[in-house]
């Protein structure tokens, strides 16, 4: 039981990770796939942030009377990873716009059909 509750943050990470990957694989709509990819990446952000957390600590800002801080490094790393994630999403959406212009569709099976007939 303590494994379940004591590590609830990691269970959330695993759930989001699997949900995101599932959407990426199972969805045929190119935009929804991007949503899945974002959920998948967000799970990793939580993994990083929660590993820097120690019980009873506060945000890593120097303040009188506080001696226990979260580890700021994972948070900084994730700031970078979020930027990378935004860039990836932007590029993916740009590609979808151009795919839609070229194929008049954002459904994977319809695009595949057009490629086969051509």
């Amino acid at each position, binding site marked *: 039981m303590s494994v379940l509750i004591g590590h609830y943050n990691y269970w959330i990470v695993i759930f989001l990770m699997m949900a995101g990957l599932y959407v990426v694989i199972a969805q045929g709509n190119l935009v929804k796939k991007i949503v899945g990819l974002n959920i998948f990446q967000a799970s990793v952000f939580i993994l990083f942030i929660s590993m820097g957390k120690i019980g009873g600590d506060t945000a890593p800002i120097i303040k009188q009377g506080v001696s226990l801080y979260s580890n700021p490094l*994972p948070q900084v790393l994730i700031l*970078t990873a979020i930027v990378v994630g935004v860039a*990836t999403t932007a*590029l993916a959406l740009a590609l979808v716009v151009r795919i839609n212009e070229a*194929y008049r569709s954002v459904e994977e099976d319809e695009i595949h059909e057009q490629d086969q007939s051509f």
Partner: protein
Amino acid sequence: MITQHLPVLQVIVPLLTAPLCLLAQDRRFAWGASLAASGTAFLIAALLLAQTLEQGIISYELGGWSTPWGIEYRVDTVNAFVLLIVTAISSAVLLFAQRSVAREIIATRIPVFYTVYMLCLAGLLGIAVTGDVFNLFVFMEISALSSYTLIALSEQRRALTAAYQYLFMGTIGATFILIGIGLLYMMTGTLNMHDLSLRLPAVTGTRTVETAFAFLTVGISIKIALVPLHLWLPNAYAYAPSVVSAFIAATATKVAFYVLLRFMFTIFGVSFAFKTMPLNLIFMVLALAAMFAGSMAAMFQDNIKRLLAYSSIAQIGYMILGISFASVTGLTAAILHLFNHALMKGALFLALGCVVYRLGMVNMEQMRGLGRRMPWTMAAFALGGLSLIGVPLTVGFISKWYLVAGALERGWWPLAVAVLVASLLSLVYVWRVIEAAYFQAPLPADSDETGEAPLSMLLPTWALILANFYFGIDTSLTVGVASSAAQQLLGVSE
């Protein structure tokens, strides 16, 4: 002294050239600036390699922050060699690029093309030069995002879906690598590669480290396009502009392969990767699957660029097989093949670039009778094909020689036989192209006189082809560097 700052200049030169190309909005300037930056990067890489061969490892502290805290750029023989390969191929491809890009990419997008190309080069060089695992992730994303863009710049609409697919596979791979890095940080509290290698042995028994190892292996394997994680590769190479196919085929998977070497040998160490975890067995099976499945699929392709893409998947199998031996000879073969495969695939894709320049397409049908109409291009393709098969006097022969030697050294002769049989398969698909080009009459419909490709495209193609033969005959540089790199990775002193 400027020579002290060579490791960081390696990345900065192309990185700063990128915005210049965009701001200038001039095709000629963008091309000239990129070529100059790439040439400078090549000189820097050559100087770095000479330095490492002379003095050993170069450690550069970025911004003067001391090592475990700041980012360290760490150059040893292994990554100096990779830097040299990437910059050499990039320079040859850029020499070729001006006319090819003008034909295949919409004029207004050409400055953007060179901008993104420079970003991609900066990313690839950054991956190779850095000694910090998180920095490696960021550079990997820089190079990956720019290569998706490069592929999507093609005028073919299938390039868009290929880039989209590559983006998804690539991002999942990179995120897996990020998870692995996070788990390693969780156990060791460090991101510096050298520091990680010192701290990991104390915690190797834990499940977290084993999970990190699994995530990293899968993530990097996606980037390498190891069977069965190769699905993004054929379309990405087939529909990208010719220049991009040549550049990415010859560098991106090679750099990813370097990342694998770095993680498995430097960070985790041989005893963990190959004794505690059964990586050698997994890699051996996947390598054989890649060698045969890739070659078989290549035999049935109609689009020649796709054929070469499948052949790349097979060639990656050879490199992975070299790793799975976990011996100095095996690793030497893998690193040699990294260099040699970059030379042959670079040359072959450039030769196809010449064909696309004249004919617009590279299906089997267009190749018919091309040996007479484009003699120099097709001769280059034929010679590059010989190197791919592994005929003596070419670089392909050298890497296969070491691979077979590595297999026999371990007493695994069936693997040596498998390497030879897979080479025969590559003979089949190369021969299909040669037969069409030299022994079939051209279609009457397109009998209009299409001549040879311009000299500015033939010269870089032939330079790479001649390099295939030069390094196939005089192996002192490549074999020397590869074996000393292998010894460094395995921690064996000479």
